[in-house]
């Protein structure tokens, strides 16, 4: 399964490595471990 959606990075963000932390919301019927994924901002 892929969950997806649009992500808009602020114009004043500094280019380079950053991190995205993904989790299920507290309202979810399921549990999750927050997962840190590396991203690159251009």
């Amino acid at each position: 399964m892929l969950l997806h959606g649009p992500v808009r990075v602020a114009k004043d963000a500094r280019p380079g490595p950053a991190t995205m932390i993904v989790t299920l919301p507290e309202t979810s019927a399921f549990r999750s471990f927050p997962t840190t994924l590396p991203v690159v901002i251009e």
Partner: protein
Amino acid sequence: MHLILPVPCCAVLLWSALGAQQPAEAKSTPAAPTPIDFTKVDRTAPKLPTTTHATYGIYLFGDQGQHRVWVVLDAPAAGEPPRTLYFDHDGDGDLTEPGECYAGKPNDKTPTNIEFPLGDLREPGGQVIHKECKITWTPKIGVRFKMLWRGSKVTFGGYGPAHDTYAAFAETPAKAPVFVPGWDRPFEFERWIADPLRRGQDSEFKVFVGNRGDRVGTFAAVDDKFLPEGEYAIATLHYTDASGKPAHAQFDLRERC
């Protein structure tokens, strides 16, 4: 986009009864799973019959990943398709036992892929049975697995951010990739297509839902029908702004495929 099917209440109750993912109110139970420390996985070499060119993988079962299962492919030579698969059903590391050896067969549509149908699989150390288990060796996208977890919903892998990252088995037990199939544990995420995010523009951010393995390319996913309609993920971007200060922005990932 696949059809999204709502999950009946009776199915949710059944999952709970089977010990699978629990509702949110059960989060603080003492036995709640914790992230797996893959450095502690026992990599003692399995006992094997005589092999020609063995490659190794590990599958972890149990809600703490406590049951290690060796899976070994044997090929006539390096780079050639495997002919035999050994699956350590009882998790004792002895692959010479009856019923743990399977012959491969070419996939009907893609004969370069070699399939090893395992049928029903009883987890070591328990009564949990998974159905229609199959492991497939491929020349380009690693070693694939697929099964009906607890006979109910599909889990498959291993995945990574791109096809060329999908994990192949390793030449030695010490380097064997570790996969964690199923949906008994709290979900984790893996990115799909790791393109850069562009400032001031929308970028589509996609994640697999399932269990992380010990490295990129070992992610075990659930399928698009697993989560009931309305479930979504939250992605929080942590970055540095132009002045050098830490900043963050939050996004909902509500689409699915």
